[in-house]
C-alpha cells in the first residue's frame, strides 16, 4: 500500500484529539476551586521549561541523585503524632500470622502515594511517594517527587532503599491501591527489582470495622477529623491532584504543587496517628473505647479472629452503652451467635426473642429460634408455633407492602419448607403407629 501523507488539518480535525466536555470542566474547575492565586491561567499546550530551583525553593526541597539520575526529596520532622510502640497482641488481631518483628516500630514505614489517576494499569504513575518512620519520638517524613516522567527510575530506586531500611509497610488502602501501583511501576522500569517488604499492614479494613457505622465514610481525612479530632485546614481535593501535576509538568507554576505535598504529609501523619489509635483500641478497648460503636467494632474484629470470650464481653459492653438501633440489633445478633456457639442458649434465646420482626435479621431470629426448638429443645410444637408466627408476619408484611416481592418469596419458601418438615415429623409417629397396627 502506498504511503499517503495526511495533511495536518486532517489530523487536527480528528475526533480522537478532542477532549470530552466533562474532561474540560474538571481541567478548568480547579482554578476556581483550589487556590486564589490571582487567577493566572495558562494554556495546556504551552510548554515552558521551569526554573528548576523554583519548586525546590517553594518546598524547601533538595534535588538528590542516584545511579538512575535525579529526583526531588523533601524531608521534615513532626512531633505529632508521637512515636507509638504497638502491642503484639493487638497486631496479631490484625495479622494473625506475622513474625514478631512487626511489633518493632523501628521497622515500620508509612507509605502514601499521589498518582496521575485512579485507573490503574501501566499508564498511571505515582509522581509523589511519601514515606515516614518513627524518629526521635516523632515522625520523620520523606517525600520523593519526580519533576519529570524521566525521573521515575531514580525515584523508585530511592524508595527501594528506604523500604530496605524499614521493611514493614504501613498503609491506608495500600494493599489494593498504592502497592499494586508501585509494583506496576517497578515492573515497567525493567531495571529496578521490586522491593520485598517483610509485612504489609493496611489499616483500611480495621478502620472500616471500627468507624464506618459511625461515620459512614472512612476516608482518611474524615477519620482524622472525627476520630483524632484534627483539623487539616485548607486541603486540596484529591480529585484535582492529577491535573495539578499535569499542569506543572507542562510548565505551570510550581507553587500550585505545594498544597499537594502538604496533603501527602497530612495523609502520612494521619495514617501514623490512626494506626496508633487503632492498635491501642485493639489492645485495650475495655478502657480506651470512647463509645459503644468502637467497642462493637473491636468485638467484631475479635470475633473474626476467634477470640470469642473477649468478643462476647465487648459485645455485652457495647450493648450496655448507647448504640444506634441498627447497630444494637447487629450487636445482639452477633452476641446471640456467640452465645449459641458456646452453648449458652438461655442468653441466645432471649436475644432472638428480642430480635423477632419483619426484617431480614428478624426472620433470621425466627429461624434460629425454630432451629433451637426443633433440634436442641426437642419441642417441635413450639418450633411450629415460631414458624407459623414468622409466616404470619411475612403475610402481613406482604399485604402492607413492607417487604420486597423477591425477598418475600425467598423467605416464605424457606419457612414453608421448614413447616412442611415439622408437620411431617409430627405426623410420623402416627403413621408409624398405624403401620405397626397393620402389621400386628
Amino acid at each position, binding site marked *: 500500500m502506498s504511503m499517503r501523507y495526511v495533511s495536518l488539518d486532517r*489530523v487536527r480535525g*480528528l*475526533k480522537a484529539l478532542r477532549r470530552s466536555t466533562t474532561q474540560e470542566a474538571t481541567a478548568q474547575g480547579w482554578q476556581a476551586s483550589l487556590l486564589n492565586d490571582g487567577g493566572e491561567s495558562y494554556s495546556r499546550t504551552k510548554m515552558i521549561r521551569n526554573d528548576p530551583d523554583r519548586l525546590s525553593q517553594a518546598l524547601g526541597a533538595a534535588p538528590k541523585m542516584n545511579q538512575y539520575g535525579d529526583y526531588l526529596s523533601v524531608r521534615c520532622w513532626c512531633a505529632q503524632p508521637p512515636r507509638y510502640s504497638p502491642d503484639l497482641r493487638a497486631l496479631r488481631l490484625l495479622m494473625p500470622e506475622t513474625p514478631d518483628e512487626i511489633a518493632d516500630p523501628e521497622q515500620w514505614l508509612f507509605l502514601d502515594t499521589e498518582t496521575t489517576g485512579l485507573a490503574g*494499569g*501501566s*499508564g498511571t*504513575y505515582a509522581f509523589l511517594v511519601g514515606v515516614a518512620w518513627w524518629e526521635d519520638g516523632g515522625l520523620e517524613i520523606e517525600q520523593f517527587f519526580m519533576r519529570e516522567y524521566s525521573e521515575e527510575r531514580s525515584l523508585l530506586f530511592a524508595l527501594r532503599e528506604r523500604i530496605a531500611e524499614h521493611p514493614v509497610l504501613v498503609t491506608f488502602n495500600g494493599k489494593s491501591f498504592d502497592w499494586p501501583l508501585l509494583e506496576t511501576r517497578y515492573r515497567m522500569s525493567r531495571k529496578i527489582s521490586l522491593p520485598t517488604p517483610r509485612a504489609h499492614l493496611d489499616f483500611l479494613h480495621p478502620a472500616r470495622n471500627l468507624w464506618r457505622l459511625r461515620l459512614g465514610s472512612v476516608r482518611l481525612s474524615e477519620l482524622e477529623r472525627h476520630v483524632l479530632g484534627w483539623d487539616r485546614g485548607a486541603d486540596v481535593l484529591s480529585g484535582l491532584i492529577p491535573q495539578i501535576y*499535569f499542569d506543572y509538568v507542562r510548565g505551570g507554576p510550581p507553587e500550585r504543587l505545594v498544597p499537594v505535598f502538604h496533603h501527602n504529609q497530612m495523609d502520612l501523619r494521619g495514617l501514623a496517628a490512626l494506626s496508633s489509635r487503632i492498635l491501642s483500641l485493639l489492645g485495650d478497648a475495655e478502657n480506651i473505647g470512647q463509645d459503644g460503636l468502637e467497642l462493637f467494632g473491636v468485638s467484631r474484629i475479635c470475633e473474626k479472629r476467634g477470640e470469642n470470650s473477649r468478643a462476647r464481653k465487648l459485645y455485652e459492653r457495647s450493648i450496655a452503652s448507647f448504640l444506634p438501633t441498627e447497630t444494637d440489633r447487629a450487636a445482639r445478633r452477633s452476641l446471640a451467635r456467640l452465645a449459641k456457639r458456646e452453648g449458652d442458649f438461655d442468653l441466645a434465646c432471649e436475644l432472638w426473642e428480642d430480635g423477632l420482626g419483619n426484617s431480614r435479621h428478624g426472620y433470621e431470629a425466627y429461624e434460629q429460634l425454630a432451629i433451637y426448638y426443633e433440634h436442641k429443645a426437642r419441642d417441635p410444637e413450639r418450633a411450629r408455633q415460631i414458624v407459623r408466627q414468622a409466616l404470619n408476619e411475612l403475610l402481613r408484611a406482604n399485604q402492607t407492602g413492607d417487604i420486597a416481592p423477591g425477598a418475600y418469596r425467598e423467605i416464605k419458601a424457606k419457612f414453608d419448607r421448614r413447616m412442611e418438615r415439622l408437620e411431617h415429623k409430627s405426623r410420623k409417629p402416627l403413621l408409624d403407629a398405624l403401620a405397626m397396627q397393620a402389621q400386628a
Partner: protein
Amino acid sequence: MSAFQSLAPRQPTSLETVHNIFGSLVARYRQEEVLTAVRQIPAREAKFRPVPAWVASALADAYRAKGIRELYSHQAATSELVRDGKNIVVVTPTASGKTLCYNLPVLNAALENADTRALYLFPTKALAQDQLAELQDLAKRLDDSFGVFTYDGDTPSDARKAIRERGHIVLTNPDMLHTGILHHTKWMRLFENLRYIVLDELHTYRGVFESHLANVLRRLKRIAKFYGSDPQFICCSATIANPGDLASQLIEKEVEIVEENGAPAGEKVFIFYNPPMVNRNLGIRRSYINEATRVAKEILARKLQTIVFANSRLHTEVLLTHLQQANPPKPGQPEPIRGYRGGYLPGERREIERGLRDGRILGVVATNALELGIDVGSLDACVMAGYPGTIASTWQRAGRAGRRSGSSCAVFVASSAPLDQFIVQHPDYFFGSSPEHGHIQPDNLEILVNHLKCAAFELPISPDERFGNTNLPELCEQLGEAGFLHQSGGDWHWIDEAYPADTINLRSVTSDNFVIIDTTGENNGKPEVIGEVDFSSALTTVHPKAIYIHQGQQYHVEHLDFDKRKAYVKPVNVDYFTDAIRYTQVRVLEVAEEETIAEPAARAHGDVLVRSQVVGFKKIKFFTTENVGSGKLELPENEMHTTSFWLTLGHALLAELPFTLSERQSGIFGLLYALGSMATLLMMCDRRDLGTAVGERPPSAASEINWEDFAVPANTSEAKEFFEPNLYIYDAYPGGIGFSEPLYRACDTLLSRALELISACTCENGCPSCVGPTADCSERTKEVALEILGRLCRDAQFTTRTAETA
C-alpha cells in the same frame, strides 16, 4: 430442460432424494426460474501425512487416543512451517481439522519448554468457549499440567490471577485484549514468554472491526517486544481470494500460505432457490423466509438432519416457530427442532450438540453464530434463508452439512435484495471459485490515533518507534498539543487521568442501534420491542411519520427519540409507504488518483467530506406508486470525513443519451443503486459499510456549490440537470475503512457486475433487486442505467489489466 437433467448423476440416491424434495416444491413453477442452480460437488479423498517425528510422544499419544493417527496434508504442512518459525495463514473449509493446525505445534512447544505461552484470539466469546473444551480434553490426556483458560468479561475475578500466572494458553477476544490485558503488568509472565498468537476466523474480521484489530495487534507486538518476546502468528481463514495479503497487512509481517486442503469430504449437492415471482412487473417475489420454511419442512419430513441459517435473530425466531409447529415433539421426547444462537448458554449449546450427534435432535435454526467453527457434528442438509453476505460465509455455512462420507445437500434461498438476486441468477459467479478479496485499512487515522492513545498509556512511545504507516512523531506532537501526551526524556508519556481504552469500542459502527418499540401494548404495561435498525438507516426508515414495514405488517412511527435511540410505532393498515428524502452532499477534499475510463467518463478515489440530512419524506401509494403526499422533517445533520470512490460521467456522454432529462436523472440514481449493491459484493463488506451519493462534479475541488440543488431531489421535475455528475461510493465510517482504493482498482469488474445484475433482472422498469424501487423512478430507469453502463463497458480499455490487479 430441467435443471436436474443437466447433470450426470453420480450418486443416484442422493440426487434422487433431492429430486423428490424439490420436484414437489417447484411443481407449479417454471423449474429453471426457481432452481437456478443444482450443482454436484464431488467427494474428495483424504490426503494423509504421518505425524512429524519431532512431535513429542506424549502429544502424539494423546492425539492417537482421540483417534488421530495421521495428519491431513495441510495439518502437517502447517505444523512444519510453524516449527520453522514462520508466520502462517492456513485456509481451510469447515470441518477440515483446522484447530489441530495450531494446537499441535503450540502444545508441542509447551511440552518442550513449560514456559511457553500462547494467546488465542477469537472473534466471539462463544467460539473461545468451544475451543476451550477441545483443548482441555487434549491437556487432560497429557501428563504435564497444562493451563488452558478463557479470559473474557465473564471470567470471575478470583480466577484471573491463576490464569495470568499459569495459563499456557489463554483464549480471549480482541475486545478483552484491548481493555483488559494490554495495560496490565500482571500479565508479565505471558508477555515475556509469548511465542504464539493464534488468530482464528480471520475472514470474519471485516470493516471497522478489522481496522481496530490491526491496531490492537500493533499494541500487542509493542508490549511483547518490551517484555522481550517476538511471537509468531498462526492465522486461520475460510476461503478468500487473498488470505496472504490480508494476514500480512493485519499482522505486518511476512506470512506463508497453506491452501491445500487434505481433509476428506463427502459428495454435496448445492442448490440455488429463487422464490417464485408474485408480480413480475414490480419484481415482487414470494417471501424468502416462507420459502425457506417450505424447503426445510420438506427436507425434515424425510428425517434428514438439517441446519437452517437466517441472517437475523428475528428471522431465526420466525423460522423456528414455523418448523416447530410442523414437527411437534413426540410424547415424552424432547423438542426435535431447536434454536441455536449467540445468547444461548454453553451448557444449553452442549446439550443441543449432543442431541444432534445422537440423533435426538432433527434440526436447528441458527444465526451466523454457528457459521464459525463450532462443532455440531455433520448434518445432512443446510438451508440458508438469505445470502450470508459473502462467498466465504456461504461455503462456511454450507459446510455445516456434510458427512465425511455419504452425501449432503445445501440450499440457498434468495431474498429479493440485489445481492441475493445477483448471486442466485449468476451461479457461475459463486461456483466459479472466485471468492472475495478481504480489504483492510489499518491506517484509518481516527482509529489509529485512538489506539495510539492506548499504546501510550500502555508504554511510553519512543520517537524511533513505528506505528502503522504514519508520521509518528507528528502524531505524538498533535496528541501532546491536545493534552494527552507529554514528552519527557525523549519518550512520549500518557498524561491524562482517564484510561483511554475504556472509551474506544472495537465494534463501534454496529453498536449504535435504534430499537423499534410497538406501543400498542403500552396501556397494559407491555410495549414490545419488535426490531432494531442501525444508526445510518434509522433516519431514513424510522423518522417521524414514516411507515415502517416489519414482518409484512405496517407500522406508523409516532415518535423518534433521537437521543435515546428509540422509535415508537403503532401498527396501521394503509395503502401507502414512505420514502425518505435524504440530502447527501459529497465534497471532494483531495483526489488521490484519477483516470479517464471511457471518454468522457472517469474513475477516481480520494478524501471527501460527506454531509447528509433527512429533510422530508414522500408518501407513495402501493401498486400505482403515485406520490400521495409529503412532509418535512427536522433531523440532525451528519458530517464526516471519509474516503470515496467515484465515477464521473462526462457531459457529452449524458447529452448523447436518447432520453428526457428526468429519465436521465432517474437512470443515474438507478445505476448508482446497482453499483452500490455490487460494490458490497466485491468488497466482501456489509451494505452499511458503504454509502452512495450523486453530486455535481464541481469545477474545482475547493469551490462551494449549493449542494441541495444537486442532492436527491424531492421531486425529479424540480431538479436541476446534472452537468457532469459524480457517482460516489464512500466508506460509511469517519476516516474510511479501506474500500475506496480497491473499488477504484476493480472499477471495470464493478461496472460489468452491475451490467449483469440489471440485465438479468426480469422486472420491467426496475425493482428493488436491480436499480431500486420503481416508486420514484421514471419508467425507463432500467433502460437508462443499462445504456450508460453499456457505454462505459464497451469502451473500457483497461478491462483485463485492472481485474488482475484488483
